[in-house]
């Protein structure tokens, strides 16, 4: 067993991990980054479409280009990187990982969790039917096509209008496959508006709202699916079934933060986000453990992941130098708010970034941040969608030191 120690261990070499590692290194910390894949960049490497970096760089980059900007800097800097290295055990201050040179036992001053997320599967949503070949999560299909040069099928139905599903509808079409439809359980899409326009509308691919797959057919290879419309309670409506032949079903039915290691650490978790509970420094409930990126909550844009990762790095570096105890003011999701990160605030001297999502689409959405009945901050936007994160900045001067903070969303339901 190889023993080593590092001031800060970052787990994950995707955008969150690289952003955190670079920022922490710049702030003077000695950083070790662990990545289980052979290359850095995470899922960005299979995202050959553009749309990354608009907020951060003011440019429209591909996923690979976005990642490369960070990879180049990581490789030039003082950050120690171990790829093809999988963390198997973790405890506060200690990380154990395995790679082709053996088991690594690492003493860590602080830890930043940046493991990203995984896709929900057929099993998790329980689509009835046999178990033929030809059913993939959208991300797995994306890897097959974009990294391995393999087409997983010729005639596709996509369930779920999350961004990966939309991107894959276009990608399959460009590679000569026929995409019959994108079915979405909800009465609205979970994808970004620009993706619906550019990936479906531009290719005349129908988006079937309030529709789901109720049955798959085919014993060996997928032969078709039965689609049905759902009612207000999301239950399939008898009589609305229709058969659609296809040899490929892609599932884009949600992402789940990859929190296996968080479980080992015993972190307090937020059932709404599926990630750990953190304060504005991205500090979890366990001292010296921080989290950022999709392991914390599933983001809409990678730019926001990078920004969040920098805050986590700053939080961790600050904690390394003076370990102040955490106290907390809870941040609670009020009317029409799906979740908020951070879930609690530790009084400090900086402004606080609040990230959250609405539960239902709204127009003239008015966000109110209040404490003890007093409005601290409000903001009105023309529209708010569950697919898009909302960001509010709470100035340090307005931060309460006791009680709780409540965020509500009013407006007109769409």
């Amino acid at each position, binding site marked *: 067993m190889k023993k080593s120690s590092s001031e800060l261990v970052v787990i994950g070499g995707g955008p969150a991990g690289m952003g955190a590692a670079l920022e922490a290194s710049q702030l003077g910390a000695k950083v070790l980054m662990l990545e289980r894949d052979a290359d850095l960049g995470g899922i960005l490497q299979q995202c050959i479409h553009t749309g990354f970096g608009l907020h951060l760089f003011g440019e429209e980059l591909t996923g690979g280009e976005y990642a490369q900007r960070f990879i180049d800097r990581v490789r030039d800097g003082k950050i120690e990187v171990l790829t093809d290295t999988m963390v198997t055990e973790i405890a506060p201050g200690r990380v154990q990982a395995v790679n*082709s040179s*053996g*088991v690594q036992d690492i003493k860590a001053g602080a830890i930043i969790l940046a493991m990203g997320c995984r896709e929900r*599967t057929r099993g998790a949503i*329980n689509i009835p039917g046999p178990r033929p070949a030809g059913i993939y999560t959208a991300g*797995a299909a994306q890897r097959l096509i974009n*990294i391995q040069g*393999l087409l997983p099928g010729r005639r596709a139905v996509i369930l779920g209008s999350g961004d990966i599903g939309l991107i894959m509808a276009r990608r399959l079409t460009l590679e000569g496959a026929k995409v019959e439809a994108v079915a979405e359980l909800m009465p609205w899409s979970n994808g970004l508006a620009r993706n619906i326009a550019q990936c479906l509308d531009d290719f005349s691919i129908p988006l079937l709202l309030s529709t789901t797959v109720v049955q798959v057919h085919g014993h060996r290879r997928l032969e078709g699916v039965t689609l049905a419309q759902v009612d207000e309670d999301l239950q399939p409506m008898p009589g609305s079934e229709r058969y659609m032949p296809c*040899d490929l079903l892609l599932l884009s039915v949600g992402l789940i933060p990859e929190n296996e290691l968080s479980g080992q650490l015993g972190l307090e978790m937020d059932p709404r986000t599926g990630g750990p509970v953190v304060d504005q420094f991205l500090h979890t409930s366990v001292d010296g453990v921080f989290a950022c990126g999709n392991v914390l909550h599933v983001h809409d844009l990678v730019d926001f992941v990078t920004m969040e990762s920098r805050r986590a790095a700053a939080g961790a570096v600050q904690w390394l130098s003076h370990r102040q105890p955490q106290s907390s003011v809870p941040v609670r999701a009020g009317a029409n708010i799906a979740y908020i990160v951070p879930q609690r605030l530790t009084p400090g001297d900086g402004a606080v970034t609040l990230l959250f999502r609405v539960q239902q689409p709204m127009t003239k959405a008015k966000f109110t941040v209040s404490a003890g009945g007093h409005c601290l901050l409000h903001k009105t936007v023309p529209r708010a969608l569950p697919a898009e994160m909302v960001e509010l900045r709470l100035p340090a001067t307005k931060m309460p030191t006791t009680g709780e903070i409540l965020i509500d969303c009013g407006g007109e339901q769409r």
Partner: protein
Amino acid sequence: MPWVIVVALFVPQKEMVTMYDVIIIGAGVVGCAAAHSLSRYNLNVAVLEKGADVATGTSRANSGIVHAGYDPRPGTLMAELNVQGNAMYPDLCRKLDIPFRQLGSLVVATAGKEEQLKKLLARGRANGVTGLSIIGRDAVLDCEPKINTQVEAALYAPSAGIVSPWELTLALAETAAVNGVEFRFNTKVTGILTHEDSVQGVETQHGKLWTRVVINAAGVYADILTQLAGAERYDILPRKGEYLLLDKDLDGYVQHVVFPVPTALGKGTLVLPTVEGNILAGPTAVDVEEREDVATTEAGLAQVKEGAARLFPDLPWNKVITSFAGLRAVPADGDFVLRSSARVRGWIDAGGIQSPGLTAAPAIGEKLTQLVAGQLDMPPKAHLLPRPEVLRIREMSLADREKWIAENPSYGQIVCRCEGVSQGEIVDAIQRPIPATTLDGIKQRTRAGGGRCQGGFCQPRMLTIMARELGISPMEITKFGPGSELVTDYLSKGGGR
């Protein structure tokens, strides 16, 4: 039937005509238990399997329970072989190097149903099951804390256990294979060749194979083959059971095999841990027409949840990672069919092996060997080889891990992150005595792709490893045999329509 002989004369000269002593039809747990048992003797044995791997039918999708034996009616083959089989498990699993957890079972009764427990207890004792007792409410809650608090009493059977039916079947097959049994996959028996009321051979889609004895262990198809052979008829009624599998992070939530009080329809929906640490709930029991119908249904899965919730009201259904269905080969007459045909010499039936078939399988293997011994002279072998060791890197001590990684660095390259399976273990699975040739085969052997992400991360990577190791194109790689190809094309160079 002289045509049989005519066909034999036309076998091309360059092809060696093998005469088998025993052909076993079906590489399920019964066929493989028979193969394992027969491999101790100097016999030329082949197992023919229509699927691409062992255990692709009933043996693949069942509860994985090693029953104590209080359930079958006394005096039946089921009762006898259940108790015998149960007693063989601890030693057999040790020899085969597979996990067996004898965690005991509970049949739990709510108010008013305690009488039924007494009936089961009496039946168990009549069957020769030892260690049975009825325990009260407090004792049940004590040993199964998350159980429905309305429980009044339970029948506790300490000899019940759990096993991975798939792993057991594979281990039996591999041990048989290293001791000389030949396995032919993707080989469907389409006809039985007989001459003067004696078995001569079988017809497959790849040609004819000659043998002295046939053991029919064809699962839900066994009755059809028996009819083709002209042996004494019996009927099999395929019955579907649906299951839900829950995440491993619930390990410990359920600590025994927990049954409700049985009804006329069967043992009911039960809840149990698996040897891998998941929780399994199911099965339903629905008679089906089609012998390939392993489709899950919305109604069936709802029924599983409802039944399981009666035992464990707070089971977290958001932790379901997959669902599946299996078929049971229910014998119309209610008991296992294990006999040498009086009508067709050399034809041995092993049919209608439904629950407790998995438990009974090792004993069924022995019984079938005795039936073969009634027809063939079979001297025992002087030396038997053990099953080659399976490396399970993630279960090793750190020192052992280090040792193996130093020897072969690919044991340190994790491909399946949910289950922690290394590339080295995947390559091993492809090089075993019964090699993995399909994606499901790799998943069953290594657990790669069987975890909470269900292969979302590792499946594309596995295609690359399999194509390289099997020396085939990615388009030839299947999920579970011909017709289940995973990808259709290379991307065209120009792209676009």
